[in-house]
């Protein structure tokens, strides 16, 4: 007999959803003078809230507020005092964890299991970790008295809205900088609740400013002459535009961009574990992950067996309501992203790869894409080269470790990679040779504030997390 899942929905009321959200500048929630945007629940296409956005004049106000705060309070404050403010933020995120998780799933479409177990706790952990650095920077290896840079202009993506805000704000504050952060156009809500937390934690006005808006607001922010440091997470395409636009300005820049990670499975790998790792690698967060294991490289001798097991496992993934605690795959974040995924999948079929898509039912409303696995993929195909940023896996095969390495490195990206084998020396050989900033061996998609994260090559430069991550926010 088949055991059906009973619905296990998380309560939507916990999100404390408000009809309107305002931007946060100089310690106050204020109306932006940009065109307000409507944040949509991608699981249902309903409008969640109206959010005010920043005009060019608002960006200027926010940067000036951040400068005042840097000059008058935050830049002069002893590290031990800064630390206590940042610890407060960490604690208050944990206190409001359930609310933030539900709101994140509503606004982003990711399963509540992920926002609850990954996004929100890791965001709190980032603040907690970096708080401790604030009064210990002289031990970080950048000299006896490393200085902050000033005002950090930060632009973050929609795939981990709260977590990316934490990755950006926590190290900036710990190093003594002040912040103007622009959340993504489609997912501004949790960053504005974070602003509320920052207000309740009584950070001095202007230390953190959060200004929603679209790409034009981001461009205005990174090009503002009052910004001393720019940090961007998003597509390689936009990263290149930002790097070019900052040429000659002397602003310090860090970029965390796209990826096309190889996940390499050898014939001696524990197959059941590998299948779980492959599924986690590509279907975590609907594949909206820059370090997703989107190219599966499997040793030819086990390819057939692995693919059978993989398809069987993927067939059991439950797609649907992001607020249901049993949901594995939530909604695609926007119609635009769904169109992009659909287009690349069509290209994969046209170029001759064999498509298999999970027979799971799709909800009538909302943006959904069923988990899809392409077999018979060759390196020249678009689905092997371009970042799909969706629940689509491209499977290639190899015979020797050297071939696996060559194929894995055959990309202009270099963010992450995975290796599955029981042979320790082979793991270390590949970990050494793979041109990627993170290598997960017999695991995938692990994140921790103590572990530096960031890319090689066109996946960007600079690191987030760990001692190495502090460099991005210090004048060293």
């Amino acid at each position, binding site marked *: 007999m088949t055991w059906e899942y009973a619905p296990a929905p998380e309560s939507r009321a916990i999100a404390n959803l408000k009809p309107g959200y305002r931007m946060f500048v100089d310690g106050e929630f204020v109306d932006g003078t940009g065109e307000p945007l409507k944040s949509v629940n991608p699981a249902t296409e309903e409008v969640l809230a109206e959010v005010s956005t920043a005009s060019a004049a608002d960006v200027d106000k926010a940067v000036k507020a951040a400068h005042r705060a840097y000059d008058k309070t935050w830049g002069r404050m002893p590290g031990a005092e800064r630390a206590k403010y940042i610890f407060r933020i960490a604690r208050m995120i944990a206190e409001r964890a359930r609310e933030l998780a539900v709101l994140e799933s509503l606004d982003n479409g990711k399963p509540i299991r992920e926002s609850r177990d990954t996004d929100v706790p890791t965001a709190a952990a980032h603040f907690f970790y970096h708080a401790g650095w604030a009064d210990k920077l002289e031990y970080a290896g950048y000299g006896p008295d490393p200085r902050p840079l000033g005002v950090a202009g930060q632009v973050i993506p929609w795939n981990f809205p709260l977590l990316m805000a934490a990755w950006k704000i926590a190290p900036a504050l710990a190093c003594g900088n002040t912040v103007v952060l622009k959340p993504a156009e489609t997912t501004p809500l949790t960053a504005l609740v974070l602003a509320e937390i920052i207000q309740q934690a009584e950070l001095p006005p202007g230390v953190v400013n959060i200004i929603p808006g679209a790409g034009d607001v981001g461009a205005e922010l990174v090009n503002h002459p009052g910004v001393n440091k720019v940090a961007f997470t998003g597509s390689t395409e936009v990263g290149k535009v930002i790097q*070019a636009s900052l*040429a*000659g300005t*002397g602003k310090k820049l860090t970029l965390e961009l796209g990826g096309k990670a190889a996940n390499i499975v050898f014939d001696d790998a524990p197959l059941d574990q590998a299948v779980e790792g492959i599924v986690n690698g590509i279907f975590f967060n609907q594949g909206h992950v820059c370090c997703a294991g989107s190219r599966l490289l499997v040793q030819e001798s086990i390819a057939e067996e692995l693919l059978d097991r993989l398809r069987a496992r993927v067939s059991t993934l439950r797609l649907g309501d992001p607020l249901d605690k049993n949901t594995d795959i939530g909604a695609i974040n926007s119609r635009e992203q769904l169109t992009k995924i659909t287009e690349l999948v069509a290209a994969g079929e046209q170029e001759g790869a064999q498509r298999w898509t999970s027979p799971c039912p799709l909800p009538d409303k909302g943006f959904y894409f069923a988990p899809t696995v392409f077999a018979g993929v060759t390196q020249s195909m678009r689905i092997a080269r371009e970042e799909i940023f969706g629940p689509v896996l491209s499977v290639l095969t190899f015979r020797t470790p050297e071939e696996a390495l060559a194929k894995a490195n055959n990309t202009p990206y270099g963010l992450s990679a995975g290796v599955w084998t029981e042979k320790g020396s082979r793991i270390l050989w590949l970990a050494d040779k793979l041109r990627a900033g*993170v290598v997960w061996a017999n695991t995938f998609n*692990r994140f921790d504030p103590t*572990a*530096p994260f960031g890319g090689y090559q066109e996946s960007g430069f600079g690191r987030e997390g760990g001692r190495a991550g502090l460099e991005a926010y210090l004048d*060293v």
Partner: protein
Amino acid sequence: MSDRVPVSKTYKLYLGGAFPRSESGRTYPVSDAKGRFLANAAQGSRKDLRDAVVAARGAFGGWSGATAYNRGQVIYRVAELLEGRREQFAAEVAAGEGVPSRRAESLVDTAVDRLVWYAGWTDKIAAVLGGANPVAGPYFSFSVPEPTGVVGVLAPQRSSLLGLVSVLAPVLAVGATAVVVTSQDRPLPAITLSEVLATSDVPGGVVNLLTGHTAELAPWLAAHADVNALDLTGAPAELRADLERAAAGTVKRVLRAPSTEPDWQERPDIRRLRPLLETKTVWHPMGV
């Protein structure tokens, strides 16, 4: 005074471990500080530069894969051979930079010491910049610095030997490979340095030195898709923003240049090593 006519040297490029002329067949005259003719230098072309990038990419696997101990010894060997040619370099530096011979000797000495300083970094930088990450879970996680790849270097325009060594030695120390555009008007010590490199166990292609017109070569270097990092130290001021913009096309790491050339006799630090290194983080589960 002997009547003997000295044998003068033909200055060529240093590319892939060999000393070719420019494929373009071009040369340009190099003068001393008083304007007297010294030699004709090869005027490297875009094609020479692209060949140099191919050579540097080809040498990257071997050099980055060499043990840190081995790289340290090779760089130390460069210092030994430079010391052995101290007088020749002092004479070239004195002629090209127009400094008194005692000052030129001091510059050569500092260049030798600089190489020794970086030779000692090869097997220490990973311990200083890397380490274990105490992650909150049953995993062993560690981070190690790794060389970024092929580094395009626009060498300092004024300091023809010490400046060059100061920007090149860190590239060698981290295990990266270099395509260097030398000082345009003072290129001769660079080519003599390449003779030292060629005889000191630095594998061919690890360092490639191009003489020529900086403004002609720099844009191709900045835009080349197989170059991972760009050092703008010797870039003409009016070109710097354009070069940074070109470098953005493939997300290169850019070492921006101070507006005035630094005093190369100041004590070095690891600021020149850090931007040439990537941090790689590795995770593995722990369990029985």
